């Protein structure tokens, strides 16, 4: 199989799901997070640490500048790491204990599981485009609810060409009538009827699918967690153009110090290579731990953390108007552009009186990676009016966002929502 672009996928590594390792500070941060949640629950207060710059004086960056400093994640590098893993698996290279024999791997598919906000659909479509694989679209709502096998019959039989189902979470509903198609698909896919392929699945949906159709021995891969240095590498080096004299310096609003030491950033600028030294990057370590190594989530937090001086903001606006969207620092050659990084991002608080209706709505949305109001009404035992009212309330609190017709858990609320469901013993993902 063609490996496509063989350039290194950078910090992206696709690993078996059981090898996913939380960033080093994960446990400590988890304890801190739970303590903070507990304190908020009982006191309603949130202790603020002393900060170098009063964060209230700093302003959020304008969207254009934000898009320049933190552009959307380019998932093609993740697709390259997936390609590497896929070729190793199909060639019988890295089979783990408990997995099937390498021979059967040639004909049976495996799972690519990603956490929320890591766009597995894009990764798999990138991979499919590189490898001329067939991309299968999910069935429609009616087809799922009627268990319409026409969708299954329409999928072409295996001819050696790999295939991709980018989003398994869109192929079922947590409804007594919404699982037949999933079971039928899994049975035929795992029997090797369609040849080698990759099934993309959200981590929450994967946890549920495993209960419906036990997947013992089926390889499941995921993106390895990003730790602090990897995030620093991605967010800072990614914005440092080798040879460029105008560099963005990210300063901590807590200490006033650069997040990445200047010499390291200079090394980035001159060589374009990440530093090999073990560095103490507390802000990035904290970010990685808070996001449990999820790069997609970290991207949202990082954008929210960036601030500018009020006067810089005005300057930014003027520059954006003058340059058609690109920003330039006018301080002279070799100067740097300072961006402040807030110590913490204000996350939407969970409702103190959140009842089971709230839990049901949030859980259903996470299991299906977004649902419309109509589908929520179909899946949950509450009346439509109550569900609609809950959705609006959760949206007002910043816990949900609306993407067209589909409701999603807001990225900044994800950790809070996950913890809310975990302590109430709802099924959560494996991460």
């Amino acid at each position, binding site marked *: 199989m063609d490996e496509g672009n063989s350039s290194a996928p950078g910090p992206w590594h696709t690993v078996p799901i059981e090898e996913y390792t939380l960033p080093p500070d994960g446990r400590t941060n988890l304890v801190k997070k739970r303590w903070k949640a507990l304190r908020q*629950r*009982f006191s309603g207060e949130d202790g603020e640490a002393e900060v170098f710059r009063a964060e209230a004086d700093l302003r959020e960056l304008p969207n254009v500048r934000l898009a320049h400093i933190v552009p959307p994640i380019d998932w093609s590098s993740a697709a390259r790491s997936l390609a590497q893993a896929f070729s190793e698996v199909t060639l019988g290279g890295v089979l783990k204990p408990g997995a099937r024999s390498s021979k059967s791997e040639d004909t049976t598919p495996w799972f690519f599981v990603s956490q929320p906000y890591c766009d597995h659909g894009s990764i798999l479509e990138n991979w499919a485009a590189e490898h001329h694989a067939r991309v299968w679209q999910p069935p429609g709502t009616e087809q799922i609810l009627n268990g319409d096998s026409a969708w299954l019959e329409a999928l072409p039989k295996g001819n050696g060409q790999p295939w991709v189902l980018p989003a398994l979470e869109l192929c079922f509903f*947590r*409804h*007594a*009538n*919404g*699982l037949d198609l999933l079971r039928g698909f899994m049975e035929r896919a795992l029997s090797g009827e369609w040849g080698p392929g990759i099934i993309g699945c959200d981590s929450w949906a994967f946890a549920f699918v495993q*209960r*419906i159709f036990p997947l013992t021995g089926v390889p499941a891969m995921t993106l390895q967690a990003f730790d602090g240095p990897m995030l620093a590498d991605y967010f800072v080096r990614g914005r440092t153009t080798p040879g460029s004299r105008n560099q963005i310096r990210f300063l901590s609003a807590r200490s006033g110090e650069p997040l990445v030491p200047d010499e390291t950033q200079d090394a980035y600028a001159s060589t374009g290579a990440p530093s090999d030294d073990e560095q103490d990057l507390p802000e990035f370590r904290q970010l990685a731990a808070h996001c449990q190594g999820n790069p997609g989530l970290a991207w949202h937090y990082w954008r929210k953390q960036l601030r500018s001086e009020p006067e810089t903001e005005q300057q930014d606006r003027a520059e954006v108007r003058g340059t058609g969207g690109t920003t330039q620092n006018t301080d002279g050659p070799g100067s740097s552009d300072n961006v402040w990084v807030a110590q913490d991002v204000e996350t939407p608080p969970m409702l103190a009186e959140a009842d*089971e209706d709230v839990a*049901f709505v949030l*859980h*259903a949305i996470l299991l299906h990676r977004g649902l419309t109001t109509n589908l929520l009404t179909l*899946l*949950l*035992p509450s009346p439509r009016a109550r569900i609609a009212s809950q959705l609006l309330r959760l949206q007002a609190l910043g816990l949900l966002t609306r993407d067209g017709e589909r409701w999603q858990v807001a990225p900044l609320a994800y950790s809070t929502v996950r913890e809310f469901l975990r*302590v*109430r*013993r*709802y*099924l959560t993902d494996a991460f």
Partner: protein
Amino acid sequence: MNSSTELTDLFNSLDQAAMLKLAMIVFGALVLIIISQRALPWLANRLHGSLRHFLLASVPLIRLLLVLAALILTVPIVIEPSLRNMVTILGAVGLAIGFALKDYASSLIAGVVSAFEQPYRPGDWVEIDGHYGEVMNVGMRTVALVTVDDDYITVPHLKLWSSAVRNANNGTPTLQCNASFYVHPEHDMSRAREALESVAMTSPYLCFDEPVVVVIREEIWGTKYTLRAYPVDPRQQFRFVTDLTARGREALTRAGARPLLPGSLALESI
């Protein structure tokens, strides 16, 4: 007259300082008991799962320990704790209780036993003497339940000596619920079973940490299905069974299993 003097000799003379000490001990114990009885349930009801049940269960035990501590501190102030004095006092108290307050004392002793053996704790779902409900409070003499009909029932601990106590979750957040279905025998059992399993797996109340089991029994009048599953919180049990029953009946009809009775909803919970 002589015996009256001897009885008086059992007790220490209570001067003002001793009285103050006694009052402080009693007052302190009462305050701590009230605080523990209010604060712990308040805290527990803001938590979930095992921690909630652990905190609720600790309430009667903490109260008993506080009462014992107060007694230990009080007795030496009131009487000289020699063997002779203790035997005399306990004998007199025992005699009074034996004749006049037998059941009351028996309930108090059963209350002490219940604090250690824990046949029921606050937060448990129990059936005592035909009453099924959630234990709201375990007092010194009685246990208070709130039933599904929102009745507040007080049962003396005395029942412990003679009645069976059925505890559905036994201090944990794990409580099995059963939904029963009665269908005509002519149907595809494996389809019906799969349909019921799907019903349980798709209920938003389901706790995935516990198994889902479908029990099938042939009766002379037809087939009985019992769907056994666990909700995430014991307090959801009736809503969970309702959800299973309503959707289970629909799923069985889709699977070709006709209900035997019109509206064959048999709600029961163990």
